[in-house]
């Protein structure tokens, strides 16, 4: 069943058909939410809310990029969740067990296919990038995640964040400049192929 059929069946009330879409896009949606909000629990909540909202608003989808349409809903869900969390006590970023002790590894980062060393490197890199992203304002963070992490073009990103193209261009440029120094601080965590990128500029 392709996406078009899944959508039409979902519109008829077939929840199983929509859940196939969920399984297909949940990684994309969760990663977007996590990178924008910066907290795993909040990202999970935003992801769930985004899918519920997408199911209810599916009739508003008029064709075109389903990914852009879905990410727009995710973006709104992230803003709502972020604001809600701002009003409530801060949840610690590091995963904890029931006793409030730090866990050795976050279950959502675990990948059974990779060895422990690779997993550790991936985790450190992920945390380093997230640390730098968290220093940006939410609007800048959303744009840079959409373009640089999700690989969207400017027009699609503009549609997702509901802003003019010039605004996206400007926010992206400023976000990247803000991230420069922060990311250089974590250079040793990056893969060897990345360590030499931009060395001409730094010399």
């Amino acid at each position, binding site marked *: 069943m392709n996406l078009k059929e899944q959508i039409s069946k979902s519109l008829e009330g077939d929840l199983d058909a929509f859940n196939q879409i969920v399984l297909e896009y949940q990684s994309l949606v*969760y990663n977007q939410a996590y990178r924008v909000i910066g907290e795993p629990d909040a990202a999970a909540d935003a992801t769930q809310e985004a899918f519920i909202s997408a*199911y209810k608003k599916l009739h508003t989808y008029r064709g075109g990029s389903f990914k852009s349409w879905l990410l727009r809903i995710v973006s709104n869900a992230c803003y709502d969740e972020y604001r809600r969390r701002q009003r409530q006590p801060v949840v610690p970023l590091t995963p904890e067990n029931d006793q409030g002790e730090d866990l050795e590894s976050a279950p959502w980062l675990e990948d059974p296919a990779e060895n422990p060393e690779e997993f550790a490197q991936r985790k450190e890199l992920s945390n380093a990038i997230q640390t730098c992203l968290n220093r940006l304002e939410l609007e800048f963070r959303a744009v840079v995640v959409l373009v640089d992490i999700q690989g969207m073009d*400017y027009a699609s990103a503009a549609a997702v964040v509901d802003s003019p193209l010039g605004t996206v261009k400007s926010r992206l*440029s400023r976000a990247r400049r803000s991230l420069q120094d922060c990311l250089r601080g974590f250079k040793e965590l990056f893969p060897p192929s990345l360590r030499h990128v931009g060395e001409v500029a730094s010399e």
Partner: protein
Amino acid sequence: MKISNREWAQLSAYLDGELSQRELIKLQNRMEEDPDLNAALEEIRYVKSVLTHTPLLSVPRNFKLTSAMVEVPHRRSQAWGYRLAAAALSFLFIGVVVLDIGSGVLKSGMLGAEAPRAEEVMLEAAADELEEPAVLAVEKAAEEEVAPAAEMEEVVKAPEKFDSGQEGDSVRMAEGETETILEETNRDYSGGEDAWEEESQELENGLSLDEEPMPTEADYYPEQEISRPVETLAIPWMRILEIALGLGAIGLWGAAWIKRQKNRK
């Protein structure tokens, strides 16, 4: 390195392939001349490369929807009935209060028109003050006129000075009227000491009389002549209505709020 924000944005867009053909050629020409722009481009390229290699996180759980998640919740009553009633009562309350205040203002305005104005009262008081010396002068003149008569009375009261048939030669009365009074007085007291004593006794008797009793209600309001003011039971209906409407509105708003809180839970 002195690169403007616009140049940074153009370099960023250049890296993403988002520049128009014209902008692209223009920027490339400038980059050939300015090495700083090349260095800046490398900086942006580095950030983009790192972000592009951001590890994809595994989802912590499944986000599949259940029917309970997506079922349209039964539209709960949002206490519209209470709200509507409360709003209606509130409007009524405001209307009655406005009517009450308005009628009060109107009544006081009418009374103010009938009553002497304060300015007029002041003017009258000032006029009284001005008139006072004149009045005093008139009173003084009157006293001067009465003084001989009073003097004469004293003379009359002294019986030894008024022998029967003897006129008061010592009394000098300019006015003919006073003389007439004097003559009458002398005639009255021509009876001598006995007459004087009788009169004195009468006066004493008169003074020793008991005080008149307090007038009764019947004296004030003689039957069928004047009716006493009717004491009406003055119930402030307006106030009662205001209080009732105000309390009703508050109660309904409270009920609506409680219902809303319950619905939220």
